[in-house]
């Protein structure tokens, strides 16, 4: 989890943010960045697998609700990122 350090702070926890790819919209800290990355990868996978395609927001919402199924299913940093993204909209 090494990247180019930025002046920006992670909007979720105020830690030093990292810039890792070109397509970055948000500057998260290393952990939240990692979770964000997994979320984006996951979106493609979900839509490949499901019959009914989901929008990005529907997808985020579905994942966030999955946590009710089992507390350990959705990673904590993933939940942080989803809450942040949904609030942004």
């Amino acid at each position: 989890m090494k990247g180019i350090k930025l002046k920006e702070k992670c909007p979720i926890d105020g830690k030093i943010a990292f810039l890792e790819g070109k397509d970055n919209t948000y500057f998260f800290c290393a952990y939240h960045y990692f979770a964000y990355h997994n979320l984006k990868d996951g979106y493609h996978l979900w839509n490949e697998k499901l019959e009914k395609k989901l929008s990005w927001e529907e997808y985020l919402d579905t994942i966030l609700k999955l946590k009710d199924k089992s507390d350990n299913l959705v990673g904590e940093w993933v939940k942080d990122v989803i809450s942040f993204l949904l609030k942004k909209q």
Partner: protein
Amino acid sequence: MNVQESKIRTPFVLCIAEKPSAAKRIANALAEKGVEQITIGKESIYKIVRKNENLIITAASGHIFSVVQDGYGSEFPTYDFKWAPLYKKSRGSNEIKKDPYSQRILNIFKILKELIPKAEKIIIMTDYDQEGEVIGGIILKELGGEKIFRTAKRMKFSTLTKDELKLAYDKLLPTIDFNLFEAGVTRHYLDWLYGINLSRALMLTYKRETSKFKSLSTGRVQGPTLRFVYDREIKIKSHVPIPFWQIKIRIFIDNNPIELKIEKNFEAEKEAKRKAEEFLKGEIYIEKIEAKDVRISPPVPPNLSNLQGEIYRLYKIPPEQTLAIAEKLYLGALISYPRTDAQQYPKDLNHIEIINKLAQQKNYISLKKFVLPIKKNRPVSGKKTDPAHPAIYPTGEKPDKKLNSKEFKIYDYIVRRYFATLAEDSIETRKKIVFSINKQEMVSITITKPKKRGWKQVLNIKEAKNKFSESLEKLREGMNIEKFEVKTEQKYTTPPPRYNPSSLLKEMEKNEIGTKATRAEIINTLKKRGYLQGKESFEITELGLTVMEILKQNSPIITLPDLTRQVEQSLAKIERAEIDSNTVILQGIVYLHKVLLDLHNERKNIGQALDASVDPKNQNKQNYGTCPICKTGKLEIRIARNTGKRFLGCTNYFNTEIKCNASFPLPQKGKIEKTNKKCPADGYTMVKVITNKRIWYWCINPECPERKKWGKNSDFAKINNEGD
């Protein structure tokens, strides 16, 4: 009474056991007539006669010396070390710690210091392993000198039973095992070198970059252990569940619903649904039925980690506690030495005698009948060996005191496991029914029936019950299943489970990290440092995450098992006299130095990262009282952006309406602590300033009429010290 007054006359043979309770057992075992107990301070030493010699049996208390820095100050890096008694307050000083433990160590130290030079002959009777060799060897070197160290005899034993102790006394080894000793002390040196330097590197960086103090540590074995938890935590905390599908078929036999699970997972919803439809239209029949008897051998004689694992699984007793209790049982002569890797009993162990003795305890009378005649394949043995000790087994002795509940659970398990290793195989009949699903998938159900319980009965293992086995028994090859349902189920990928005390211990063992004696303690240290939290499953803390992140980015090698494994291999080579201790230590230092340089080069980033996790924004910052300017904000320590100097600032600075910019300079050296004191001159808040040299109070008011006066005047500081 002191040693002088105790009228110990020369000539005598001095015997040094590892712990007081072992000394007492040894005295009782070896005494030909009576045992004379002499009390010095709170320690007992025992005087006995054996083979016309006077024996004085005394004990250490585990380690009474430890490795410390040779020299003053918190030099960094520091590579000079020496052994010093544990009761000393700090290196170099002669001050003695006042707590009861240190007082005891001091007393033991005095007794040994007086007796060692006077003894005609010395026998080391500590536990026979690396640590035991170090405990005995260092006492000899530090209190007796090189000649005594070279000539003292060694008694080797694995249980504290009378028979074994007497036999061991007749077969004394001419010296301690010098190679084992060298390997042991080298481990202590390396652990000290890595521990102190890496910890100081973290703390100094933190202090330099933030002017704050925090006790941080890491070490040669701590690093890789924390890394396991860290790697897993990252996976858990960033896990995004991905869906997959399973097809479940429910068949009905005599109207009993029986689930058939197709092993295959379906990656796409469409595919799963299509398959399910096909199955529903197709037919299910019984392809074949196979029955066979399966023999299951008993579990092997347990080593320490087997015992810790089973006890955790059965009773949730944490591994370090299991070790502590097992050690107590060993000191009570009830079981053999527990710090062992071996899964084999001694070749000449008298099983008949142990079995007969155990059968005298009413709990175990009934177990005797399960024991097979001792021959080639009984007792069973495992693969692992240990040069110093056999597997853990009961001695057959009866407990002289009633065991408490946890002690009993562990003792009872050891006894039953011992009987199990001697008992008959367990035999079960397994009937496998294979269903053909539409000629595409084969799904099987196995029904097991116990044929002979054998060792399973000894260990009280419950048999798993098969649901609807009566209905399943009616099925014959070629039969068609008339009634069934097919459905798809959406599932999600799950993150890996968190480590628990037992699985983390196993992971360390698998990666050859630490020793059987130290693993549980290392996990405990990580908890004490605040890097891990949780009892039954370990979660890494914010601080643990940061410390690991820093180590991983700047010196990954100390977070990986490789270095630790290499050290273990070097230590094993010292034991076999294939390499000398100095070479291994030197290699260690060269390596360490490189790591420290890496950390030093990254100090700015490390300081910032630590600051963020030691003192995260959302956590309560220490508050130093109400701001005397705006009267509503609180004062907290901040660092000036332009100068890097620390000062007390008001929290209302961030409040856009008030924007109080009150600022009070602070001394730049030393640790700052809050107090409830008010300055006698102007009533302003006072803080405590702690440096290596002194502690004093500081009025935060820069205009304080008295401040200049007492800044250097120790009298004023002293007055202020009173009543604190």
